[in-house]
């Protein structure tokens, strides 16, 4: 191998090396709209109904079936309390221990804070974007009974929709406890950690 080093082959070689090193070290990524290529499909896609997919087997095309009429989920009951019965039927049986309040804060921060804000005073980030005037829980909800607040979370009120599908009954009671604790000022409302 005598003679001078040729320019273009050297450049090409360098580019190829840089390309592979960048790719294999994970610093180069191209995106694609197409699903990953399956060269060998080792039963990766099995003919079964998976969650949240459609199914041609049923006339309505729903893979996930609705519960039958007059049946209840094993985890609880469907919320169907009327507004007049809230104090009789919605009884809070769980104690307001620290861990329950921490759970309440966690759930409140996820589901309530977008509109009601972390401190419950309304004016959350979503409310600022045009959700109409959420009530200040520290003032307006002070005179409501626990059962009534539970009812509002479960069934919705005015423009607020029901959160019964997102929160379990226990979690809803934990949220009620947390709102009460915030009203009393016995917890320090904040986005991250539980702080008494």
């Amino acid at each position, binding site marked *: 191998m005598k003679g001078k080093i040729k320019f273009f082959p050297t450049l090409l070689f360098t580019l190829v090396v840089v390309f*592979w090193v960048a*790719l*294999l070290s*994970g610093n180069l*990524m*191209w*995106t*694609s*709209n*197409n*699903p*990953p*290529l399956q*060269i060998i499909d*080792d*039963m*990766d*896609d*099995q003919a*079964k109904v*998976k*969650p*949240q997919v459609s199914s041609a087997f049923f006339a309505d095309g729903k893979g996930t079936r609705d519960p039958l009429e007059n049946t209840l989920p094993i985890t609880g009951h469907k919320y169907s309390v009327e507004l007049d019965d809230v104090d009789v039927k919605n009884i809070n049986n*769980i*104690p307001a*221990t*620290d*861990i*329950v309040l*921490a*759970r309440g804060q*966690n759930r409140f*921060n*996820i*589901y309530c804070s*977008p*509109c009601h804000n972390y401190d419950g005073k309304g004016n959350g*980030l*979503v409310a600022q*974007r*045009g*959700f*109409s005037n959420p009530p200040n829980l520290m003032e307006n909800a002070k005179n409501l009974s626990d059962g009534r607040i539970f009812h509002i979370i479960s069934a919705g009120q005015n*423009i*607020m*929709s029901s959160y019964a*599908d*997102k929160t*379990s009954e*226990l*979690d809803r009671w*934990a949220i009620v406890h947390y709102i009460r604790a915030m009203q009393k000022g016995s917890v320090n409302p904040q*986005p*991250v*950690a*539980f*702080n008494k």
Partner: protein
Amino acid sequence: MFTKEVNKKTKTTIWAGLALLTIVGVVSYYGFNNVVTDVGYRPEQPIPYSHKLHAGELKISCMYCHNTVEKSAHAAVPSTSTCMNCHIAVKAESPKIAKIKESWENNKPIEWRRVHKLPDYVRFNHSRHIRAQIDCASCHGEVEKMGVVTQMKPLSMSWCLDCHRNPQEFVVPARAVSGIFTGLNSNEEVAKLIKNEQPSWGEGKWKPVRDGKTEAIGILDHELKQSGVPGLVMPKKLALGPENCSSCHY
């Protein structure tokens, strides 16, 4: 390299053979690797929903929409009614919202395209990982910074096992944006524990050793005793992930 007896034709053949072997090796090893084939999958969704706006700027927790992760194996894509919780009022007249409204009024679900998919012979349980206070970003990347969701991790078996064996090196501890319940511990304290640093109460360092019955950290015990509410979702102990085949393939 070659002695003078080797003629030119043989030399060329040997060099060509070596080059071919290298190319075949590189292509078959990396060409089938999930890092190359799967990472970067970014399907165009029927509605240009931005996680960057909703989770990043508006700070809506992951769990607001993906609310099943804590209790079920499947992390559900939210129903249209979840969108309408806010969009009944916010930007209700925007043409981008029209499709959601249409879906809501006609009771026809929006057909979102799935980004992260494991093979069907793998059982991945979201709830087990979420309740061990492992952040969503560990496997999905920082979705709150993505305009269009992209697969960031290879989701291959070796990638799973790397983390099951050395969680303190790979796990992203629970962050505020995900909404993961960390009990009475702050997110920072959980982060310290997962990274195997001394937590503020000074007793709980865990030993990630696989010795038949892995000794998990004991710090969450005192919380579990305090709960006393059967059925309340509680964070689970941190421990090494299982390594035996039947944990995920059954």
